[in-house]
Structure formats: structure tokens, C-alpha cells
């Protein structure tokens, strides 16, 4: 690794010193294309975030792709019903790597006010890995921007080799996530234990 101070000095002389990892992560984090996909009222805030007042384009996320094949980021913006959950997992499976998930709002992270309902999933992280959770009902556009910046920091810090490298650089990592089947009363299975080991609550 190049020393930071040396790098700045070299920069003053017109010499750019960098690493492949830095360049690669800079490219990835600066052009995250979210999927054009909204689920409930949080989607309205997501739309507001992309518009002129909040302007998500400043962070390189101006292109909302209407196809999962061209998207890097899935924003789960709203309540995930049990009827919709298999479709959400299917969409996630269709996205190419590298792909990221932001669970936006109380419903997406836990079921929110509808948690005890007969038809609402208690958080999308039961089926697919979530990178950033944003609380709020709905979260403000600033909160979504903050989550987006956090995601960029996370991408920036990802090493390309060794432990902690992203899933798409790990040949053994699982890329496809099982789609739950609608059962008689609930989705089967009720959660993917590989993605979501039941958290231990300390009482």
C-alpha cells in the first residue's frame, strides 16, 4: 500500500498512485444503479430522493433500471407481504453480481406496524442478505441518502481477496437464494436459516 502522505505529494507532482482495489471499488461505488422497484409508501420517499430536491444522482445513482438484469441495488421500499416475498427473492436472484440490498423502513426490516398480521413478512432479511437497514416509517429522503452513503463506504472498504471479499469474488459463495413456496398458512420455509440465523435475544 502507498503511504497516504506520499500519495498526496505525488499527486501534487501530477503522479497518480493507486491500487487496483481502490480503482475498482471507486468505480463500483460511484455507479450503483438501483432497481426501479417500489412496494409501498416508502417508495414515494424513494422517488422523492431521486428528484431534484434531494437528487440521488449526485452519488451516481441516477439511473433506475426497470430490469433486475441491469441493476446493482435493490431498495426494498415498503411492506413485503407474504404473497410478494417470493417475487422479491426471485428478483434478487435475477440481479447480476455485485448486488446490494437496502431494506428501507420499518416494514422491510421487521414487518413494522403490520408485523403481527396474517399476511406480512416479518422482515425481508429472512430470505435475502440485507446490507443496510434504515428505520423510519417512512424514512426521510435524507435517511435514504445516508444509507446510500453508508453503502458506498461499505463497498469502498471491501477487499478484493482474502476474508471479507464480496460474494461474487468467492467461487464457493452461494449466489442463488431459495424462493419460498406459499403454504397453507405461511411461506415455506418461514425463513432461510442460512441467511437469517434466529437472533439470540438477551433477556
Amino acid at each position, binding site marked *: 500500500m502507498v503511504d497516504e502522505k506520499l500519495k498526496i505529494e505525488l499527486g501534487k507532482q501530477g503522479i497518480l498512485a493507486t491500487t487496483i482495489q481502490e480503482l475498482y471499488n471507486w468505480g463500483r461505488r460511484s455507479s450503483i444503479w438501483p432497481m426501479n422497484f417500489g412496494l409501498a409508501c416508502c417508495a414515494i420517499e424513494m422517488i422523492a430522493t431521486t428528484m431534484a430536491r434531494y437528487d440521488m444522482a449526485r452519488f451516481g445513482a441516477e439511473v433506475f433500471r426497470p430490469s433486475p438484469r441491469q441493476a446493482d441495488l435493490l431498495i426494498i421500499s415498503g411492506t413485503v407481504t407474504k404473497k410478494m416475498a417470493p417475487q422479491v427473492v426471485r428478483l434478487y436472484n435475477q440481479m447480476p453480481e455485485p448486488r446490494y440490498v437496502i431494506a428501507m423502513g420499518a416494514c422491510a426490516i421487521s414487518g413494522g406496524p403490520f408485523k403481527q398480521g396474517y399476511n406480512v413478512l416479518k422482515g425481508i432479511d429472512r430470505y435475502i442478505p440485507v446490507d443496510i437497514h434504515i428505520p423510519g416509517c417512512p424514512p426521510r429522503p435524507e435517511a435514504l441518502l445516508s444509507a446510500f452513503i453508508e453503502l458506498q463506504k461499505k463497498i469502498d472498504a471491501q477487499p478484493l481477496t482474502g476474508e471479507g471479499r464480496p460474494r461474487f469474488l468467492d467461487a464457493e459463495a452461494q449466489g442463488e437464494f431459495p424462493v419460498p413456496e*406459499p*403454504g397453507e398458512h405461511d411461506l415455506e420455509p418461514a425463513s432461510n436459516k442460512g441467511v437469517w440465523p434466529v437472533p439470540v435475544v438477551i433477556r
Partner: protein
Amino acid sequence: MMTVEEIKTAIDAAIPDAGVVIVPNPSPSGQHSLRLDPRHAIKVAKFLRGDAELALDFLSNATGVDWPDREVAEKVKVTRPVTKTVDGVEQTAEETVEETRKRVEPGCLEVVYHLFSVEKKHGPVVLRMRTVNRTDQVELPSLTPIWRSAEFQEREIFDLFGVVFTGHPDLRRILMWEGFKDHPMRRDYVDPDDFDYEPTAHDAVLVRAQEHRAAAAAEEGTGAAQ
């Protein structure tokens, strides 16, 4: 706007055996409703829509109500002969005793329709219909042929309450998926035991979560014993 009594009189005049009952609403709104006999509901509905004075051309809302079986305890005075021994002589006398009797009042499913008239700018007129019971005789005539806007709402009632509408053009589940069992808006619906992770449980959820934890612990115990 005619009062419910006037509407009932008009219906009875047009359809002699309609069997419409007024269901009073004791609240300040006083929005009384008319309970129809399901056998004549189609005829009554056609009358309400077609009558020149009522012209109820718009069905704004259809909803369901679940009335579960309920146990009624009532005190009944019972007279029975009692044999007493007074001064060594056996006497039979009548005695009145108060007894508490319990009986189960059978439940039913109810459908409520709210009608308005766009033409006459009045409404609502509230119609009700009841099924015979909650288990096997749950058919009611569909009012979709008369008011088209009932179609999706009757599907929703079918989905969530389990009322089967005869004469409905496309009676399928609308909110829950195909293959779902039971009807979630019924009072006795028990949702699946998915209480693995309840970090902030309280009230009814806390009870369910504790039951789930106890069952899980018991299962683990038997598993360890084997």
C-alpha cells in the same frame, strides 16, 4: 331521502314476501339497516336500483362481519315440586327456583352493503344479509349482477370471511394466494406459530412468544434425552 321504514314499506308493497327486517342502530348516527332474506335478495336489490324514487345506482362498499357462536347464560325461573317433612308429615309443595341456563347461540357470517344514489344524491342505504351458520351453509346470493362494483369486494369477503357468493362471475381469492387455507378475518383464525424472534413482545404477542419458547424448550429437552 326515505327513512328505512318507508323503504321497507315500499319493498313490501313491491315484493309481498320479501321478508325485510329493520336492524336498528342505537348510536347517535341512527344509521339503521335493512336485513334481507337471501332468497329474495336479488329481487329486492333490483327493486332498490330500479325504483324511480330510490334509484340506488351505486354500491360504494361491501364488507363482512363474523358473528361467532356465543354462549348465553340466562336466569330462568323454574317451578318444581319439592317434598318437605313438616311436623313429621310429608308434604309436597310447589317451589320456584332461579336457575342459570347456558345455551349456545349459533353464529353466522354477515355481509353489509352500502348503497348510494348518484342520480338523486342521497344515501347511504345499508343492506345486510346473514348466512345460516359459519361452517357448511355459507352461501349468499351475489349482488354483482345488479351492482358491478361488488365484484372485487365480494371476492375479498369470500377470501377473508369465507362467504360463498352464488352467481358471482369470478369467485376466487383476491388477497391471499391460491392454496391458502382458512379465512384470516374470522374471529377464530389462529395465525401460524412464527414467534422465533420477538425482541419487544407484549400483550397477546408475548403470550404466544412464551408458548412458542416453552414448546421449543420442551422439544429440545426430549431431543437431548434421546
